[in-house]
């Protein structure tokens, strides 16, 4: 696999920073009441969606989770319309019907975040099935947390995908927490990827490191694209904040939180890019400033966009 060039690396870095700054901004506007409902931030996990989606084409599919902003942004979703949907506005991708938890963009193959843990796993398996049936060469990436591997559909889907050699990559972002419960209470194995053996597919565990994820995802996507079947990747990731924005995390020790936040996939990449003279300190500040402005602009766009009219309520339930 070709190593990414300087320009690409900077783009990947910018995407990761964008995801973090978007999440930080969303925490702010959610906390001040501008967005109702629930928001699940993926801060600490930005490397995975960017590293994985960097191998995908616009026509490839991704299915996301309730913690799905990073997946959509990494796949290339338009930031202004993304914000409009999160604010429940009429011009959002789902006309304000999905909000954060069901965000989808058909034109980019974003199958939707899902409010049901593991809900997206069989659906992603189905898009891979359709791509194989229609011989389109498309690949599906299915993101999920390690908590989703507790669900029966995880097993059923990987079993079917392996049987039929479907063009799919299952990407488990193991952040150690399923809502309020840590891994040790739920999993009798150390690695979700170990379960791949039960489906006769390859399972690979890796740290929350951009380059490592980039490399393994590249191999897995290529394997899928060549018709060699599914792969299960597991990234040992971290959840910096609570399950949802506003979660006081009384169930979690300060030590665990501090440990999670001491591991920063963005800072690690930044250091490597600076060491490699691909970025300079002033570039970092410049990039951050530009991203900040883009996000502010998108937020203002969302704020100023209209809500759907009440007459929209009963529209288009059926085709």
């Amino acid at each position, binding site marked *: 696999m070709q190593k990414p060039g300087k320009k690409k690396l900077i783009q990947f870095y910018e995407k990761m920073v964008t995801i973090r700054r978007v999440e930080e901004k969303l925490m702010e506007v959610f906390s001040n009441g501008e967005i109702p409902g629930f928001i699940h931030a993926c801060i600490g996990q930005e490397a995975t969606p960017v590293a994985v989606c960097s191998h995908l084409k616009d026509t490839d599919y991704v299915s996301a989770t309730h913690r799905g902003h990073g997946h959509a942004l990494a796949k290339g979703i338009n930031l202004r319309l993304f914000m409009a949907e999160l604010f429940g506005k009429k011009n959002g991708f789902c006309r304000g019907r999905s909000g954060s938890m069901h965000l989808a963009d058909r034109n980019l193959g974003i199958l939707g975040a899902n409010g049901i843990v593991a809900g997206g796993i*069989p659906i992603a398996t189905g898009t891979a099935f359709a791509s194989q049936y229609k011989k389109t060469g498309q690949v599906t990436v299915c993101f999920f947390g390690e908590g989703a591997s507790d669900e029966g*559909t995880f097993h059923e889907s990987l079993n079917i995908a392996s049987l039929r050699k479907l063009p799919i990559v299952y990407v488990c972002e193991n952040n150690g927490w399923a809502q309020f419960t840590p891994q040790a209470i739920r999993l009798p194995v150390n690695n979700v990827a170990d379960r791949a053996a039960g489906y006769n597919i390859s399972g690979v565990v890796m740290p929350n490191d951009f380059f490592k994820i980039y490399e393994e995802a590249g191999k897995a996507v290529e394997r899928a694209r060549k018709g060699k079947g599914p792969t299960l990747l597991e990234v040992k990731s971290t959840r910096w904040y609570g399950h949802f924005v506003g979660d006081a995390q009384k169930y979690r020790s300060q030590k665990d939180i501090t440990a999670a936040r001491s591991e920063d996939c963005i800072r690690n990449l930044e250091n490597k890019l600076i060491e490699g003279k691909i970025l300079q300190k002033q570039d970092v500040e410049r990039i951050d400033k530009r991203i900040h402005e883009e996000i502010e602009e998108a937020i203002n766009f969302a704020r100023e966009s209209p809500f759907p009219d009440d007459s929209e309520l009963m529209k*288009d339930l059926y085709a």
Partner: protein
Amino acid sequence: MKEIRYIWAINEALKEEMERDEDVVLIGEDVGIPGGAFGASRGLYDRFGPERVIDTPISEAGIMGLAAGAAACGLRPIVEIMFMDFMTICMDGIVNQIAKMRYMFGSQYTVPIVIRTPAGGGLNAGPQHSQSLEAWFAHVPGLKVVMPGTPYDVKGLLKSAIRDDNPVIVVENKTLHALKGPIPEQEYLVPIGKADIKKQGTDVTVVATSRMVHEALKAADILGQENINIEVIDLLSISPWDKETVLNSVAKTHRLVIAHEAVKSFGVGAEISAVVAEEIMEELDAAIMRVGAPFVPIPFSLEKAYLPNADDVIKAVKRTLERTF
């Protein structure tokens, strides 16, 4: 016209639609080489091959989600759920995903899925293989539910369901699989959402579904000998249901009985009687009566006592005639 069994009418519908449209695929347990647990897909594996007639592991939840994803990107999957009782295993796929995908995503995705599922008692299959759960699904916005009761209707409705761009659940009563009936040689469709008046009458409207249509027709013969002339409406579609045909009939007969095999409480009959009461109460000359199963699981040995039949329809018709306001 030709005489054909209900199960073969299903088989013909599947075969014709798979020939017409190569996006139609059949997914389920034992649907391929074995030809389906009840034989609905016999011969289709040989005709269309393993790419289009897919034997799956025993993973109802997994295959329901798989169908959702496949439908979202252009296929038209038909999923066979061997017994309607097993629909409970894939409720997330049906209720949270398939039913909502179009609306929730602002019409970006359509999910043309057909779920075929045999329901009902009569085979002594016991509490977990005999239920009629159509009301569960009719209660969910985004789904369509149909219950054809004759070979003609099942073929025409299944073909319409396959061509529909929405998820449609086709509920078959297992005891009807062997039923013979006439169907045309040439192609035809039965529209979703339209009821069929199986027998015209003047005294009492009996709205029935699936197997209970046949029980209502038996009741009509017996009641006819006593000069009671009932109208039998085969509802055919549960959601959406043909309100117009039912209301017009009630406005003519001024009496209503609703008969289904599912448990009476909170059932389809409750919905129909509520709508009739809300919209044309003044047309009614008597209390509405419902015929349905008692509020217990379906026992292995006491099926006869459990299942509603023509006698129950007769009793309900007589009761509504006695209870004139």
